[in-house]
C-alpha cells in the first residue's frame, strides 16, 4: 500500500480497481454458489419456491446444477435417511473444493420430528459431513433459506487463502 500512498492513488481517474487476492476470490466465490440439484423431502419444496421467480435464488448466483462436479454448495433439504446418508456422503466427496453445505430444516439439523422413533433417520446430517450453516424451521420459509445463504456468504467473505477453513 506504501506505493499507492506515495503517488496518491495513480489509478483514481482510470478504470482500474485495487483489491486483495483474498477479497477478489472470496467475492467471486460467494457471488456464484452453484447449488446441487438435490432435494430430499418437504424442505425441497420450499427450496424450489426459493429458486422460483418470486424469491429468485438466482439473484445471489445460486443456480442448480445437475452434477456434483459443477457444484459449490449442497442444500440438504429434508430428512436424511440412513440409506440416503451414504449417498449424500458420496456426492459430497465428488464435489470439488471449495464446497459448502447448508443444512435446511429440523430434520437435517437434528432429526426433527423423527428424533426418537425414526429408526432409519440420521439424527443430523452433521454426523456425516461438515455443515456451514444451519437453517432452522419445519420447513423454513424461503426468507429463512435466503438468510442462511447470506450467512454463508458472510462466512466466505471472512475466508483467507493463507489459512484453510472448513
Amino acid at each position, binding site marked *: 500500500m506504501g506505493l499507492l500512498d506515495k503517488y496518491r492513488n495513480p489509478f483514481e481517474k482510470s478504470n482500474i480497481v485495487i483489491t486483495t487476492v483474498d477479497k477478489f476470490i472470496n467475492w467471486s466465490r460467494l457471488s456464484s454458489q452453484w447449488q446441487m440439484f438435490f432435494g430430499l423431502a418437504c424442505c425441497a419444496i420450499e427450496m424450489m419456491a426459493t429458486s422460483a421467480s418470486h424469491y429468485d435464488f438466482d439473484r445471489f448466483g445460486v443456480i442448480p446444477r445437475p452434477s456434483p462436479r459443477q457444484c459449490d454448495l449442497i442444500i440438504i433439504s429434508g430428512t436424511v435417511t*440412513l*440409506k440416503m*446418508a*451414504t449417498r449424500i456422503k458420496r456426492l459430497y466427496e465428488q464435489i470439488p473444493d471449495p464446497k459448502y453445505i447448508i443444512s435446511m430444516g429440523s430434520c437435517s439439523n*437434528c*432429526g426433527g420430528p423423527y*428424533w*426418537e422413533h425414526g*429408526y*432409519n433417520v*440420521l*439424527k443430523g446430517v452433521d*454426523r*456425516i459431513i461438515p455443515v456451514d450453516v444451519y437453517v432452522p424451521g419445519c420447513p423454513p420459509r424461503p426468507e429463512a433459506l435466503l438468510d442462511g445463504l447470506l450467512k454463508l456468504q458472510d462466512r466466505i467473505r471472512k475466508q483467507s487463502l493463507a489459512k484453510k477453513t472448513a
Partner: protein
Amino acid sequence: MNPKEIFDHLKTKFGDAVIEFKDDKPVDSYIIVSPVKIDEVSCYLRDCEDFQFDSLSCLSGVDYADGNLGITYNLFSFAKRHKVNLKVIVPKDSPKVKTVSEVWQTANWHEREAYDMIGIIFEGHKDLRRILLEDDWEGHPLRKDFQVPEFFHGMRVPY
C-alpha cells in the same frame, strides 16, 4: 354383493380354507383366510363372474403383538362396485403366506413392503427383497419387539 354373501359363497367353494367372517361394527367386516390358500381364493375372487375383484386397493402387514402377524387385503371391484376385506393370520415364528403378486400386480411391491417392515415371507414371490430399507439392514422395524441398532454402517442411529 355384500361381504356376508361373498363369505358364504367362498365357504361353500373352499370349505376349511375360508376360516371365519367377522362383522364387528363400526370396524369394516373381514374374512379370515388360510395362509396356504389365499392365492387360490384371491384368484377365484378375481376371475369369478359374480365377484370380479379386479383391484387390490391395499395390502398391509400387521404385528398383532400376541405372537401373530397378519396381512390385510382390501379388494375392490370396479366392474361390480363392491368391496371386501380379507385377512390372513400367521404365527410370528413362521410367518409364511402364499403370494398374490401373480393375481394382482399391485401386490408385488406391497408384499415387498410387508416383508421389509414386518418380515412376512411371501412364498412364490418372484422378487422378494427389501423395498425401502438398505439391503443389508437387520430386522424388521415395524415389529413391536424391534430394537433400533446402535450403529448402522458406522453412523450412530439413536439421537
